């Protein structure tokens, strides 16, 4: 996972609340067997049926900072929701409230999920709507989002632990592998008769 310090990219105002994971990516995409390439599934219903949907507007199409309404990521706990956002190119989602599971999944996959106050959310939406294509800079170290000509600054919340992990670029596995020596030491204490699948053995007789 790449380490995250700052990121600058086009801000996308998604003026909707209660965007659940089924809206982020419909269930049919769950049949896939890969962990990448979910960009086409992102907000699939809106992108296909609603020409005015924000990502269908050229100025926002290359966006990488999503600014969404409250209760983003509710519903079933599918990790695919985060994969779809990430594969589309989003590096951060700002909202005034996230579903817990979504926020947990985001942190594990390197996507910043920052919590803004409702007033700031409204202001940020205004900036992004008045000047489509405005870039937002996410400064994770200082937990700040900078946007617009006037240099508006918004504070967002990310818990210390997640922030540290994102800044170190540590996914769950990377985090565990920091203790690789402990694992190796533990393995050295395991009795020899513990189960081993290799070399493969099978019944002598059928």
């Amino acid at each position, binding site marked *: *996972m790449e380490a995250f310090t700052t990121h600058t990219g086009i801000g996308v105002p998604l003026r909707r609340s209660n965007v659940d994971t089924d809206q982020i990516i419909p269930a049919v995409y769950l*049949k896939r*067997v*890969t*962990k*990448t390439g979910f960009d086409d599934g992102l907000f699939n219903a809106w992108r296909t049926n609603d020409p005015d949907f924000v990502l269908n507007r050229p100025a926002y199409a290359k966006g990488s900072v999503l600014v969404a309404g409250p209760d983003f990521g509710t519903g079933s706990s599918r*990790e695919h929701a985060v994969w779809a956002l990430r594969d589309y190119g989003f590096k951060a989602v700002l909202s005034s409230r996230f579903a817990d599971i979504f926020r947990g999944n985001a942190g*594990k996959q390197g996507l910043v999920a920052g919590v803004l106050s409702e007033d700031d959310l409204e202001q940020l939406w205004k900036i992004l709507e008045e000047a489509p294509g405005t870039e937002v800079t996410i400064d994770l170290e200082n937990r700040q989002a900078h946007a617009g000509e006037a240099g508006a600054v918004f504070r967002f919340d990310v818990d210390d632990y997640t922030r540290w992990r994102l800044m170190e670029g540590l*996914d*769950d*596995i990377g*985090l*565990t*592998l920091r*203790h*690789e020596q*402990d*694992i190796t030491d*533990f*393995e050295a204490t*395991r*009795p*020899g*008769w*513990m*189960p*081993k*699948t*290799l070399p*493969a*053995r*099978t*019944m002598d007789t*059928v």
Partner: protein
Amino acid sequence: MAGTLAEKVWADHVVRRGENGEPDLLYIDLQLLHEVTSPQAFDGLREEGRTPRRLDQQLATEDHNTPTIDIDKPIADITSRTQIDTLRRNAEEFGVRIHSLGDLDQGIVHVVGPQLGLTMPGITVVCGDSHTSTHGAFGALAFGIGTSEVEHVLATQTLSLNPFKTMAITVDGALKPGVTAKDIILAVIAKIGTGGGSGYVLEYRGEAIRTLSMEGRMTICNMSIEAGARAGMIAPDETTFEYVQGRPHAPRGADWDAAVEHWRTLRSADDATFDAEVHIDADELEPFVTWGTNPGQGLPLSASVPAPEDFTDDNARVAAENALEYMDLVPGTPLKDVKVDTVFMGSCTNGRIEDLRAFASVLEGRQKHPDVRVLVVPGSARVRIQAEQEGLDKVFLGFGAEWRQAGCSMCLGMNPDQLAPGERAASTSNRNFEGRQGKGGRTHLVSPVVAAATAVRGTLSSPSDLGAASAPSDLQPVA
């Protein structure tokens, strides 16, 4: 050593104690893989340029999607075929041992692990499947995990986890004839509810548990998840050792002695305290059957379909109302009058050799009810072979049942073995959720002997409802 069995096994596997509320890093001895929950885990490894840490602690088999007929032909369903092809490719690329369709050791993950002697007392076992709790029957700490955890175990052979709470479920007394392990666990779930075990490892103890075979114990631990539990466990004893000994991957010689010496210490201390305790009297149990759409909605077979008003709790009443509508059941109908279209004998709950023997012992010398379709699906290719060596296949075929190849089959209907909308099944599997066995299908969970008696009478029945068989049986009925 003090503590419960689960706590001991946990303590034996802590690589690193979590500080300040952080989770413990727990070592995983054995990971089982199948085609549905592993593809993204392997893809994740590939993406990060990682490799499995311990290939000798991974085992893959194909089960959820596999067809049970024409297994030499290409799989028709595209999603199923893609998942299976992907597993095969991943196994080859990463060097994971795999038992593919047609292989002698192929079968449902939870049947294959114990059968190969890989499932042992005191180990930790994980799989991207909730019924991993099955392996707890050996005194292993075994639980289901999600796909990103599968990847985590592949890469590190560990998981970060907070300790589970423990619940003792004591089943005292002796089972009446015709009452089986399946009836015990259905009664337990009916008693504590589908959320009653939430956050707990259940430890089953007491005389009735001790007298069960390993197959029976696996049936019970298998369904721990249906009570919401993380895992189920039974302390290992002579029955366990006897089952493991001589299996392909079981320890041998001096290793065997060392292993057994350790395994004998794996029991909850007499003064261990559990976070919760439940008691059940085995003598009072009867054959059990579910009437609703979750495994907790069960009753003795001699009872009648309940009415929503029977439930004082609001949620339970609404759930009953919905379930009765979906199941198309009228309150007050004796359960024994409920007509069944299909009998499914199989799954990781009841697809082992002893289950097939029990099923056959009831069928022998009897006729199938003409309106019932009977599907017998062994849990693994080995179970199938053994059943044929014992002549059980002839009993099934002579009775008019279909005798299939190994896999999950109609347990979840990911392959073509499905109920048609509105069809009703007596099933030896573990989940009676809406649509689980096929869209619109209706499921009654039962034991193998109840499934068999139902196939004879055409309505939910127990062997005691049947007249004498026409020919004396030389198969031993199994309690």
